[in-house]
């Protein structure tokens, strides 16, 4: 039988995934003008890929064959991908990274897009926090039975 730990595990996986996404967005915003990277060229916008993962089964469910966990899925970041958009070229002949024609390649990052993603991510994080809080409240109040 599923317990509250399952719900708490699922909610915390959601929080972890959103935190990872938030870090990626922060990195994108911080590097909005970065023209040099260890890989060479300008910084490339990063994005996370979310994946639903069935929550681990416990022994009881395996022997009884009941599988409510098949319906309960954690979320995890399966990959961090680099945006393939072409860099923005700006004419700045005095810049040390300018190409022979005088153009500098800047990351193709739209600040508005990053900000909206950030708000969405923080809202999702809050939703997971609420779910976790509810799990905790329910579990704690269950301990009060018969008091």
């Amino acid at each position, binding site marked *: 039988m599923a317990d509250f730990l399952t719900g708490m595990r699922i909610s915390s996986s959601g929080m972890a995934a959103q935190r990872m996404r938030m870090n990626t967005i922060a990195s994108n915003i911080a590097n909005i003008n970065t023209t040099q990277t260890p890989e060479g060229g300008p910084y490339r916008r990063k994005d996370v890929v979310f994946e639903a993962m069935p929550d681990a089964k416990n022994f009881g469910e395996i022997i009884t064959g009941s599988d409510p966990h098949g*319906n309960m899925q*954690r979320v995890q970041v399966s990959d961090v991908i680099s945006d393939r958009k072409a860099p923005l070229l700006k004419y700045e002949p005095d810049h040390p990274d300018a190409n022979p024609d005088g153009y500098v390649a800047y990351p193709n990052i739209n600040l508005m897009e990053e900000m909206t993603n950030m708000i969405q991510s923080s809202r999702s994080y809050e939703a997971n926090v609420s779910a976790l809080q509810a799990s905790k409240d329910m579990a704690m109040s269950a301990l009060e039975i018969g008091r």
Partner: protein
Amino acid sequence: MSGDLFDKTTNALATSMRMRQLRHNVTSSNIANAETPGYHAKKMDFEEALGRALDMDGANGLSTSSKEHFAVGGVSVAKTRPDIYENPEGAVNNDGNTVDLEKEMSALSENAIMYKTALQLINKKMAALKYAAGDGR
């Protein structure tokens, strides 16, 4: 038979709490995956199955003429099984996700309130038993 001390109501409340806990986990899973591409929101029903098992109107079980007879027809409350399925409602997003976060959040609080309601009812029953066991003191 423990039926005298812990009656059908207590069992039904316990089952209801168990189901609400499961539904809570299902809802949590929907919330966690609100932005996962291709994830389909799950829905869980148990009220009808529990109602059938409780058999308030006595329509489901066949009557037996002796205590030794096996009960026929009625399902035991403890054996109530939830029905979890993909929610057919909900618009499909660009990324194939069908989670409606507002609905899930309200379902979450509603479910938590109902859980606490069942819990309070159990506590009331326990308090009554305690009172009786303490000679009414």
